């Protein structure tokens, strides 16, 4: 048996051994499966919430949705800035097999330029391949049609629409409304500083100029969000949830479209500015700076050629002359100075001087001349305004001194920002001793004071400052911020008016002084020697105003100014400030026309044109007073 056992297999023992080993193997299998299961239990039950969160983080993305920009209306509800769908030709690189071949075909079909191609490839580099890249923006309707016909041949190329700003009145409102354009790095940096980058996450354009810039916050609105499900490539599969954006506010301007267009026509072909306001509120009815340009050029990115043409134009169209143009106010500020003189007691209503056409200071050889070579003769304060006597004001300025003039003119707003709702504003300059010291490191000489009396020398003002100072006269010292924003338009078309903003009033002790100056301004248009009486002859309404002629060119002592001999750019600026109707004024205005010559013959007629237009449909019961004396013999010589 032992021998047999060695040679013959013990099948039972072997079977038992195998059974034992197989059982052990099975137990090990069960143990390992339990390990796998426990691990899955940890993942799927214990840590389930964590992985659920991560899974959602993978698939759910929150995308910002741009709010619609608020619209801009004029005071009568005419739409001045609207949002229009614009079409762009967009390419999704991922969906195109042979991009270069497609580009060649598109070039032939759409006339894609080399610049467009370069810009396209530059954008392409930095983007993921499923994101659309614009090949051409702002397609015309013909281009849209042209491509649509061939659309089926170009998978991955499509025409996309988005809302973009459009200014239907073009250059009429450029300096008022401004424009929006694509957000650039600098804008982005400002938005980050203001903590607004999230709010602009989906926004394409931002206000760059004018109302669009100043009231950006109101017009923009608040960003909305869209919860979307994306796949691993980031492509949107479906929209899960929408938190809609809050659209920007629709705003209404004080501007009257018709009046604005009239201002543009009145300044056609000239450099200058017209500002028309409503004295009772400071609301700006019209404000045009000539020349202007088309803001729509900027919305889709102005070409460098067009931009440099605007930038380098000698007419400087980019400047808003109404708020940034610094002009010598010239004689337009004589009413203000007269008022200060009366208030300070330097003069009274009966103070007269004898004007010989020449003014000299004691012990000074320099001679200041009146615009009228032989002088106005015996002149009191009222007459001095009516005929715009320079000599009277030389003397008044001398008597008042620069400190009094500077301080009191600052209370009219000269030398400081009016606070109009535009960032493009200059505070111009109201000179003072301190200013001259700081600017030129020189003391103030008495000789410097004399031309200040006729609004010349260092004194400059913007048309909006001038208009607002006239409003201060009309309102007897009460001053308001001139505002473009009238209010907000509700869905039903009603308007919530914006509150008036008051400024520090001008304090004048005696009410009769206001009356005197206002009356003198009336005489400018209707007095027998009024400098604007020709321009305002036979108006159906009674207006008042003051002419101004600003010298840009010093003529040597003893020389005579001959307009035709002076270079055009050095000719006098023509100015006019005025208001109407005289009783209870509805409008006040400033007209400045550069290098046009005298104010009475060049600016005053434009001012009248504006007033005539404003009152075109009005019937006035009380006609203006007839001047009770015959016209003087000096009519033909009036050049101011």
């Amino acid at each position: 048996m032992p021998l047999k056992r060695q040679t013959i297999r013990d099948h039972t023992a072997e079977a038992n051994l195998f059974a034992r080993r197989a059982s052990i193997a099975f137990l090990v299998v069960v143990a390992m499966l339990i390990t796998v299961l426990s691990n899955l239990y940890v993942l799927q039950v214990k840590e389930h919430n964590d992985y659920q969160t991560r899974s959602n983080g993978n698939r759910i993305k929150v995308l910002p949705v741009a709010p619609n920009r608020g619209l801009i209306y004029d005071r009568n509800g005419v739409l001045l800035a609207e949002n229009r769908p614009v079409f762009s030709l967009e390419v999704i690189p991922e969906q195109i097999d042979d991009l270069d071949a497609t580009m060649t075909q598109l070039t032939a079909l759409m006339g894609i330029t080399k610049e467009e191609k370069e810009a396209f490839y530059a954008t392409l580099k930095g983007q993921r391949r499923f994101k659309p890249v614009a090949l051409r923006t702002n397609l015309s309707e013909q281009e849209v049609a042209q491509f649509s016909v061939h659309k089926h041949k170009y998978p991955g190329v499509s025409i996309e629409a988005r809302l973009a700003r459009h200014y239907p009145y073009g250059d009429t409102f450029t300096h008022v409304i401004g424009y929006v354009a694509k957000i650039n790095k600098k804008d982005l940096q400002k938005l980050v500083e203001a903590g607004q980058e999230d709010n602009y996450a989906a926004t394409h354009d931002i206000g760059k100029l004018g109302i669009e810039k100043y009231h950006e916050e109101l017009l923009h609105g608040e960003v909305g969000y869209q919860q979307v499900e994306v796949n691993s490539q980031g492509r949107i599969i479906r929209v899960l949830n929408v938190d809609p954006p809050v659209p920007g506010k629709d705003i209404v301007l004080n501007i009257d479209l018709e009046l604005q267009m009239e201002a543009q026509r009145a300044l056609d072909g000239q450099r200058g500015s017209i500002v028309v306001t409503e004295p009772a509120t400071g609301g700006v009815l019209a404000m045009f700076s000539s020349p202007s340009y088309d803001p729509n050029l900027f919305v889709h990115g102005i070409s460098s050629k067009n931009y440099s043409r605007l930038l380098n134009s000698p007419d400087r169209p980019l400047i808003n002359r109404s708020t940034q143009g610094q002009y010598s106010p010239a004689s337009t500020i004589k009413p203000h100075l007269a008022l200060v003189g009366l208030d300070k007691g330097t003069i009274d209503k009966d103070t007269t001087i004898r004007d010989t056409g020449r003014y000299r200071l004691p012990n000074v050889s320099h001679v200041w001349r009146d615009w009228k070579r032989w002088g106005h003769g015996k002149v009191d304060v009222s007459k001095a305004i009516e005929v715009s006597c320079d000599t009277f004001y030389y003397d008044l300025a001398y008597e008042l001194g620069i400190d009094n003039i500077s301080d009191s003119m600052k209370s009219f707003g000269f030398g400081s920002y009016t606070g109009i709702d535009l960032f493009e504003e200059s505070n111009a300059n109201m000179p003072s001793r301190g200013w001259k010291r700081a600017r030129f490191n020189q003391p103030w000489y008495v000789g410097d004071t004399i031309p200040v009396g006729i609004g010349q020398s260092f004194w400059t003002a913007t048309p909006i400052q001038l208009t607002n100072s006239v409003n201060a006269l009309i309102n007897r010292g009460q001053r308001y911020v001139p505002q473009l924003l009238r209010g907000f338009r509700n869905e039903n078309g009603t308007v919530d008016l914006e509150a008036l903003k008051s400024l520090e009033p001008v304090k004048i002790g005696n009410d009769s002084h206001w009356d005197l100056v206002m009356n003198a301004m009336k005489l400018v248009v209707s007095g027998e020697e009024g400098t604007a009486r020709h321009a305002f002859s036979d108006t159906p309404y009674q207006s008042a105003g003051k002419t101004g002629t600003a010298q840009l060119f010093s003529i040597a002592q003893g020389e005579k100014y001959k307009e035709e001999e002076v270079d055009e750019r050095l000719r006098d600026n023509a100015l006019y400030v005025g208001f109407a109707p005289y009783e209870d004024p509805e409008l006040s205005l400033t007209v400045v026309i550069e290098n046009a010559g005298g104010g009475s013959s060049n600016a005053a007629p434009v001012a009248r044109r504006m007033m005539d237009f404003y009152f075109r449909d009005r019937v006035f019961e009380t006609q203006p007073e007839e001047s009770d004396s015959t016209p003087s013999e000096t009519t033909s010589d009036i050049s101011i």
Partner: protein
Amino acid sequence: MTITLNPNKQTFLQRLHIDGWLLAGLIALMGVGLVTLYSASGQDVGQMERQAARLVVGLVVMAVMAQIPPMAYRRLSTYAYIIGLLMLIAVLLFGDIGKGAQRWLDLKVLRFQPSELMKLAVPMMIAWYISKFTMPTKLLNVVVSFVLVAVPTVLIARQPDLGTSLLVASSGIFAIFLAGMSWKLIGFVALIGGAFAPIMWFFLMQEYQKQRVITFLNPESDPLGAGYHIIQSKIAIGSGGLEGKGWLQGTQSQLEFLPERHTDFIFAVFSEEFGLIGVFILLMIYLAIILRGLIIANRAQDAYSKLLAGSITLTFFVYVFVNMGMVSGLLPVVGVPLPLVSYGGTSMVTLMAGFGMLMAISTQKRLLSR
């Protein structure tokens, strides 16, 4: 002379040499596979049809293999092993490169992975070799067996194909273990294996394989690169929860965050959509198949059949464990599919051939006295 047992009592399936229990388990897995594949492929009916066709081929191969008597396999063992070995060498010398590894041998008429043949040839060879001697196996036989396992394992690892070499190695080792290798020796081999690990690391493993191990140890170190697979897979499984997100509702797979979702990582898709409950049921199906395989092995009449059946069954489990382990972050990522569920034909056909052998062992018994 071999005649079948109780021919009158045979059922229809037995007459076809098909094991009913095993077939039921395999069909259940295939069903799970197709349902999951439909979801994982993004509802691609074409892909499902191709896989169904492959499964039919697999079933046919299984049925054919089931008809061959176990003794024939025994006689073929050495030839299969030697031919397989020669082809492995040929692959290293002339093989086609696919996915950065030399695995394919182009025989003009068909492309063939010799490593797949070795998955069956190695357990056949070890079973043949050990069953020549009495059990428990002697030390010398164990050493020879290990050499017989190691040669093809190293050749496959050098292709490089870590997953298959792992499966081939374990199929041989299981046969040795089942043959009654002494526990002392097992302990010793485990120690040697531990010492061998650094040698593997420095001399045998390719850079990409090392990277997989590093990534396995800390997947978050490279969340967008090598760790991406594991992280996304764990997110898919974890977010499935107890009940799962529902069929076709798995966001990780439907939205393509999960890589290799219809092949090696299909288990993550399944876990995401059917949850822990679904996973448990799937594991029970696998366990049932393994249990049935071990029962067949235990009932087999001769040592060769027992060892072969046991080895095939346990190797099948290695597929399951390694795949689930790597997809759920327990093991490093080695390319092992989830058997009969993952999309793909090659390894599935090999598996089905193995099950055919199991069925042959189960249904073809000789009347033989002890």
